[in-house]
């Protein structure tokens, strides 16, 4: 660890902290309808869709809209990939994507996972990248944010039936938030060297006379939303480690800040919408504690060097321009947020450094988390925390004046159960079947880590990988897609049901007996609950994976 590395961490979090109230305030304006500068476009879209933007939906209607948009998105994306050979903007003449891979990829992008069982530059034409992936990058991000906003409305409303209109929230998110920022951001990326062209690959004759085919494409326009919307699906196989996707330290910094921006900002939006910004800051503090701890833990662990190589600086799977510090930080940020973009190969991280990203995901993607999903995921933990805290102060539990009763607990439990079931259950299936075992690249405990990572990543809609695992097989294409579906819908639907249940409740005003949720004690308790739930669920498999690998490596055992 050196001063520059530590400075980088501090600077990043300072920038994100400064952005939070700005973006948070703007988002609050979007969702209470005050932002109107694109009203003509917005109204036009509603007219085309036959929507009355003032007609709000019950949570079931909201969930139905969420499901249908995803279903249609998957179908459209699947179609584009299967038919790309017959479609324009395909200079490299990429052929139809095989059905199982297309199935996996369509679900992956629609669920904001962006797990990639393919190399982008060698598989996908530009139309799929633009009209398929980029569109889903926008929509899946906006859908996640919409769900978070619906949940916030659950807290702000009293005895209400509706939680908002999904189509309206989706449209407003894209129009007012994502699209304008991405338009400007993309140009900054191009300025820094990210390509943006419809021309095909370039053939170069190298200095030594060899031939080098250099893949190109409309990269920049996809890159900004990929990070801003915590999608993470790379244009190229090497993702954000590719010099075209992430050419400079500045771009790398912009990516990290934009990955965190919306997730952090939404905590502030939450605070503003419920009328007490400190509540939002408390949530951000809890997320921030975990994020900062993770960032330093990864950096420290990775800076130790590989004991098997005489503590040689572990540059395996890292880019020179990023070095250890920016790679470790990016790994933490991308997994804390369900982004999944990588600027270093996580599979080659030292065991403990690789465990932090794994844990970030296993905690349920609540350390800032995905756009929207981080907030609503954390809110599920908040309900559990406040339930226990309420009991311990001798009041029937409540949060922000909403009583937490059997129904909310039941829904929260379903949401919390979904991911362990997908990670441990489906992962166990992979460990038991020849098809599952066939994909594992590494022998020894690291092989288990690869499988665990794949399911943690899919079930938490992250998308990053211990990429040694060969996921492009029928087995993994299908089972990982199932994990992604569970991770998305088995969380979102209970969360929307919670939103509906909360909105229908009366609001109890705080009294001296109410436990204040703007306090550090709340932050500590929330962090504790998140760690305990995650820790207790995954301690055994973590012990069998990265922990034992670390202990073995330290004692000189190789696999």
């Amino acid at each position, binding site marked *: 660890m050196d001063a520059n590395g530590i400075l980088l961490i501090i600077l990043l979090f300072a920038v994100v902290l400064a952005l939070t109230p700005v973006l948070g305030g703007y988002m609050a304006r979007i969702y209470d309808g005050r932002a109107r500068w694109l009203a003509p476009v917005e109204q036009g879209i509603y007219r085309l869709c036959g929507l009355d933007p003032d007609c709000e939906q019950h949570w079931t209607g909201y969930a139905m809209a969420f499901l249908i948009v995803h279903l249609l998105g998957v179908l459209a994306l699947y179609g584009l990939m299967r038919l790309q050979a017959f479609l324009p903007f395909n200079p490299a003449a990429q052929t139809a994507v095989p059905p199982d891979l297309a199935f996996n990829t369509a679900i992956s992008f629609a669920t904001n996972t962006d797990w990639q069982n393919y190399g982008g530059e060698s598989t996908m034409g530009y139309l799929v990248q633009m009209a398929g992936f980029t569109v889903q990058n926008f929509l899946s991000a906006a859908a996640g944010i919409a769900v978070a906003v619906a949940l916030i409305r659950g807290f702000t409303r009293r005895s209400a039936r509706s939680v908002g209109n999904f189509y309206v929230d989706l449209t407003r998110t894209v129009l007012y938030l994502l699209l304008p920022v991405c338009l400007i951001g993309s*140009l900054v990326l191009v300025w820094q060297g990210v390509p943006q062209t419809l021309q095909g690959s370039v053939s170069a004759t190298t200095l030594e006379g060899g031939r080098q085919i250099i893949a190109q494409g409309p990269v920049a326009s996809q890159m900004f939303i990929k990070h801003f919307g915590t999608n993470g699906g790379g244009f190229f196989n090497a993702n954000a480690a590719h010099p075209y996707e992430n050419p400079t330290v500045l771009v790398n910094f912009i990516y990290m800040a934009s990955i965190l921006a919306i997730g952090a900002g939404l905590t502030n939006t939450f605070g503003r919408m419920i009328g007490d910004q400190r509540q939002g800051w408390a949530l951000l503090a809890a997320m921030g504690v975990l994020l900062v701890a993770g960032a330093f833990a990864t950096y420290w662990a990775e800076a130790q060097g590989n004991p098997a190589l005489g503590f040689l600086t572990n540059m395996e799977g890292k880019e020179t321009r990023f070095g250890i510090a920016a790679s470790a930080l990016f790994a933490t940020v991308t997994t804390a947020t369900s982004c999944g973009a990588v600027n270093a190969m996580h599979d080659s991280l030292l065991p403990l450094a690789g465990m932090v990203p794994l844990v970030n995901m296993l905690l349920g993607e609540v350390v800032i988390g995905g756009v929207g999903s981080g907030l609503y995921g954390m809110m599920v933990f908040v309900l559990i925390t406040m339930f226990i805290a309420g009991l311990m102060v001798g009041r029937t539990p409540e949060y922000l004046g909403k009583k937490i009763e059997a129904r909310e607990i039941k829904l929260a439990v379903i949401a919390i159960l979904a991911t362990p079931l997908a990670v441990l259950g489906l992962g166990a299936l992979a460990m038991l079947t020849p098809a599952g075992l066939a994909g594992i690249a590494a022998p020894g405990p690291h092989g288990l880590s690869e499988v665990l990572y794949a399911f943690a990543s899919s079930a938490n809609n992250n998308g990053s990988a211990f990429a040694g695992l060969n996921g492009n097989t029928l087995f993994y294409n299908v089972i990982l897609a199932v994990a992604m579906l569970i991770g998305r819908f088995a969380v979102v639907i209970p969360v929307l049901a919670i939103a509906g249940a909360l909105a229908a409740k009366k609001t109890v005003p705080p009294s001296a007996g109410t436990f204040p949720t703007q306090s550090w004690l709340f932050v500590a308790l929330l962090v504790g609950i998140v760690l305990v739930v995650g820790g207790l669920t995954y301690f055994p498999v973590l012990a069998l994976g990265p922990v034992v690998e670390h202990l073995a490596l330290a004692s000189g055992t190789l696999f």
Partner: protein
Amino acid sequence: MVKHLRAALVLLLAMTLLTGLIYPLAVTGLAQALFPRQANGSLIERNGRVIGSELIGQTFSHPGYFWSRPSATTAPDPKDPAKTVAAPYNAANSGGSNLAPSAKALIDTVKQREAALRAANPAAPAEVPADLLLSSASGLDPDISPAAAEWQVARVAAARHMSPEALRQLVAAHVKGPLLGMLGERTVNVLDLNLALDARWPMR
């Protein structure tokens, strides 16, 4: 239900048009107008021919060039398309080795690389810089660390029959970063450096 379907379908189409075509094409237009060099891949031409990209690393094996980092990129095996073969700096298929730090395969590879580097650089210091032993994430890393460049100076100078001192100055002039003097690593772009080398001390 029908209402939902119509709304969702039309919305998806509208968004595809807006974010999937209008947006990327608009960015393309603007980028081509404002930053044409970068938008087209920061390509470098010499004598009217594209010799590579400033951002994409290349393979060097001649002792008179600075060598890039090991690359783990592959290409389809011409004999069996289902298999792959090693193809360093394949810019049509980026990627890393994904070897675990505890993998025997990694440790063995590193030992082989070390032996090969030593054999080719008899005059170099004992300790080989990590970035010359370990492969990059993209397999297309355009940079090496200043230490890795320094480590190769003796070999390159000998091959080009020039003084190591002059070469060191050239290398020093090509060290970039850190950003604002504090963020990121110090790097040397290998292709840039080798181009400068060819320009000043052409190989005989």
